[in-house]
């Protein structure tokens, strides 16, 4: 078997395993033939193991052959040859994607094993793992994407899974409303990403990362853009990354997203989804290098997010909220590192942070029990962490903590300056339309005005 064929087969396994998992769980749910908990766990474990094994095998083969970048073209998904329009499905295994893919499989495997027990007898067990499989596929595709369109596909899948899992406990209104907020930010982020992708495609005639970033393997490469183009496209990508990674001013959604089950919080907001923005910036790092202003924007945004999260995290009253802001602090620092031109350090930082935060989030539900065990072992109360450092802050700086009380009032600001004016304008238009149709009809024209908020369920005759 030659090396190329080996890479092709293994690459197909890496993406094929999560695809198969999604197909199995999705079809069985859609056809009302739900699998048992045990079957779901086994399917998930098997697909994760196959994917991980294939990725590790690719890594071993790359090390053996000395290849630093292995592109794998799965073919043209759509092609209009007369217009030179091609939508390639392409994967690339390089120093950025392989570690990320391995991390994806390892942590999702661990979390899914945890979830298999944590979610036992939960009514939405199947629904949880279905969304989880959407996430796994999205994350795998995003990590290994060799074209910006492929990355966008993975990006969107991760966003959908995230929103659905935030709303997992959908019997209560709060998780659903928070999920809606998360989805709103994601849609904005997706719009920015799509615009950047089309602009890149348009400016360079290529969506392929090899074409965009030059032929050097990551992190070497030179983007085929002018500094002005790099600034424009880079800012769009930065907005996309900020939305996905909860950087300012979109930080409000991250603590809200903790409404979801602990395993999903761990894997999304400890491990992957929150780092996807940073991953995007790493992937398009040759574009950042073309514009000093862009790098400066990345650094400023990262540091500001880190500072804000550091302050806000200190006054959170629940563990998941505190961990959310702790996560954001690190993501902000990682972003700043990327803006400063570092490449491997942020990657290592992401990997280490993802592992630590996943562990912390998985342990979060048993935090109080852990504390009591420690106190029993110690024989007394534990010293409150950071008490000494609080005394070192002068009064003036302590007021900074007020910034964190309402999480910087970022959501309120968005509601006040964006959502409410938008809603007011269109509700006014709706009233005008009602007046117009009432005038034309000569009477009240809307039956829908008489509908109760929650109608009684009618019985079928």
């Amino acid at each position, binding site marked *: 078997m030659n090396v190329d064929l080996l890479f092709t087969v293994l690459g197909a396994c890496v993406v094929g395993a999560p695809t198969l998992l999604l197909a199995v769980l999705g079809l069985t749910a859609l056809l009302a033939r739900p699998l048992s908990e045990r079957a779901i766990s086994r399917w998930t474990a098997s697909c994760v193991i196959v994917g991980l094994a294939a990725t590790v095998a690719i890594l071993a083969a790359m090390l053996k052959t000395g290849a630093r970048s292995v592109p794998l073209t799965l073919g043209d998904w759509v092609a209009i040859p007369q217009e030179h329009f091609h939508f390639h499905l392409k994967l690339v295994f390089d120093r950025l994607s392989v570690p990320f893919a391995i991390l994806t499989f390892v942590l999702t495997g661990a979390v899914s094993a945890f979830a298999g027990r944590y979610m036992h007898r939960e009514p939405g067990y199947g629904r949880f793992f279905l969304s989880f499989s959407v996430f796994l596929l999205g994350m795998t595709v995003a990590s290994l994407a060799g074209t910006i369109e492929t990355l966008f596909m993975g990006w969107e899948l991760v966003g959908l899974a995230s929103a659905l899992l935030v709303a997992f406990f959908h019997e209560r209104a709060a998780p659903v409303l928070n999920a809606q907020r998360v989805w709103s930010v994601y849609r904005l982020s997706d719009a920015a990403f799509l615009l950047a992708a089309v602009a890149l495609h348009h400016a360079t005639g290529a969506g392929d990362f090899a074409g965009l970033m030059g032929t050097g393997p990551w992190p070497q490469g030179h983007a085929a853009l002018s500094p002005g183009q790099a600034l*424009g496209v880079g800012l769009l990508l930065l907005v996309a990354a900020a939305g996905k990674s909860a950087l300012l001013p979109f930080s409000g959604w991250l603590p809200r997203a903790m409404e979801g089950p602990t395993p999903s919080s761990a894997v999304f907001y400890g491990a992957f989804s929150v780092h996807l923005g940073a991953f995007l910036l790493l992937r398009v790092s040759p574009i950042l290098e073309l514009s000093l202003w862009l790098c400066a924007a990345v650094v400023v945004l990262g540091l500001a997010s880190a500072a804000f999260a550091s302050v806000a995290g200190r006054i959170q009253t629940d563990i998941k909220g505190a961990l959310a802001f702790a996560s954001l602090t690190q993501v902000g620092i990682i972003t700043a590192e990327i803006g400063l031109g570092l490449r491997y350090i942020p990657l290592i930082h992401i990997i280490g942070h993802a592992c630590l935060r996943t562990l912390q989030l998985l342990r979060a539900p048993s935090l109080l029990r852990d504390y009591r065990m420690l106190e029993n072992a110690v024989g007394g109360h534990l010293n409150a962490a950071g008490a000494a450092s609080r005394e070192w802050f002068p009064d003036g700086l302590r007021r900074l903590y007020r910034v964190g009380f309402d999480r910087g009032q970022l959501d309120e600001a968005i509601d006040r300056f964006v959502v409410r004016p938008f809603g007011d304008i269109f509700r006014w238009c709706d009233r005008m339309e009602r007046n117009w149709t009432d005038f034309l009809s*000569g009477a009240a024209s809307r039956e*829908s005005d008489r509908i109760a908020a929650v109608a009684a369920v009618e019985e079928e*005759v």
Partner: protein
Amino acid sequence: MHELPFPWLELCVLIPSVGALWVKFTRDPDIARSRSLAASGLALACAVAAWQTFSRMSTFEARGWWGPLVIDELSAPKLPLAALIYFLTNMATLRTKVREFSFARSLGSEAILLATFACKAPWAVAALLAAGTVPPYLELRKGRKPTRVYLLHMSLFVALLGFGQWLLMANHGPAGRATLAVAVLTAAVLIRGGVVPLHCWMTDLFEHATFGTALLFVTPMVGAYGVTRLVLPIASPEVLWAISLASLVTAVYAAGMALVQREARRFFCYLFLSHSSLVLVGLETATPIGLTGALSVWLSVALSLTGFGLTMRCVECRTGRISLSAFHGLFQHVPMLAALFLITGLGSIGFPGTAGFVGLELLVEGAIQAFPLVGALVVIVAAMNGLAVMHAYFRIFTGRPHAASVDLSVRPAEKASVLVLSALIVGVGLYPQPGVASRYHAATGLAGARPRDGRRQLHGEGRAGGRAESGIGRGVHRLLGGGLGEIVAAEGDGELRGQRREVSRMPRRRGEVDILRGD
């Protein structure tokens, strides 16, 4: 012109017509439903046969056995799509609704719609477009619902259509009369398409007619068909600019309105309006990529929004009219409907893996080629529609579960209808190449059908690099004044698109050069 070897087109029209009469004189509603399913099923089979026969003929168009009926690359997939929409809507009509929903009238309107798609001659298309407005009016009258809003708008539409056709057919005089004819026809088809501010008939129809009737009247997007058959072949760039601008404004307006609606039918209406307007925006881009995207989005939106509407209709059968002000908690009762609602809703916004994804990409690509701001607005509209879809999903299916005294689970007929559409949405999404190739052929045909004058006008202002600029781009230049417009064009062309002139000089790079050369 080639001729189809079998009268499939004639059968497509005849079977539902005869079926309408057959069902009209059937007293028992259940038997009426069965007969209408048989008739619409047969019509679907004939439409599919017509499409497949035509595909094998390797020709751009073929005529039927009876004079005006023609099938071409544009209408070939629309015939089975329209027939499928009617068949599945009839199938998903539950027994609770058979007394409200007239199957005879549905078959009658199906016959008119299929005849519309099977015609190319402007006079025939215009006559059928006018005839198609009658069945919903009859339903409103029979149900003693307010008809004024609908009647006023459709009367205006029919009057403008008739006047425009008359002007065109009597056009032996000055060129001004032809321009007036085009403007009048454009206004007519835009009213039918629901362009703002003359869209209130659509929301009124959803308010007062049955959901099934309203759905069948709008989802085939006959207004867009009217634009492609009646206006595009003869319109000047200024007219295309007007269509594009009106459609863009409608798309943005409707997307915003969808987000603030408190009732599900009105929400659906605005969501549909937004998507259908994007199709018109894409049609105007005048590039093969943009046209291909528009035609692809046309099919995907028709499929997915029909599925979305049918799912919503299924929910309405259980809860009555759906308020979006509160949570209904229906997931526990109808999880499959929730899943299908999500699939069809995401399909309508072009989510990856669904039928609309590649079409939207092509449409955005084409729009950005024409004018970047248009492309940006298309993306923003898609994002807003995504918000609206998830908002509706959360309101309908999440929340404290209702305690119901009867089994609310989805019935086999409903399941089959929505599953078929979902399978098509996902299937076409995963394997889009055949559809895109077919729409590209249709797009090149559409671009070739435009008069050389129009193309010379696009070309004649001496733009460097031979970039095909859409009507809306030129319109913005005029609005801003020549000098400022040039600056805007230059800046717009500058950093982000600076390499496009390089790109567009490459032979056959984006198809713009093809159009300008009249290839």
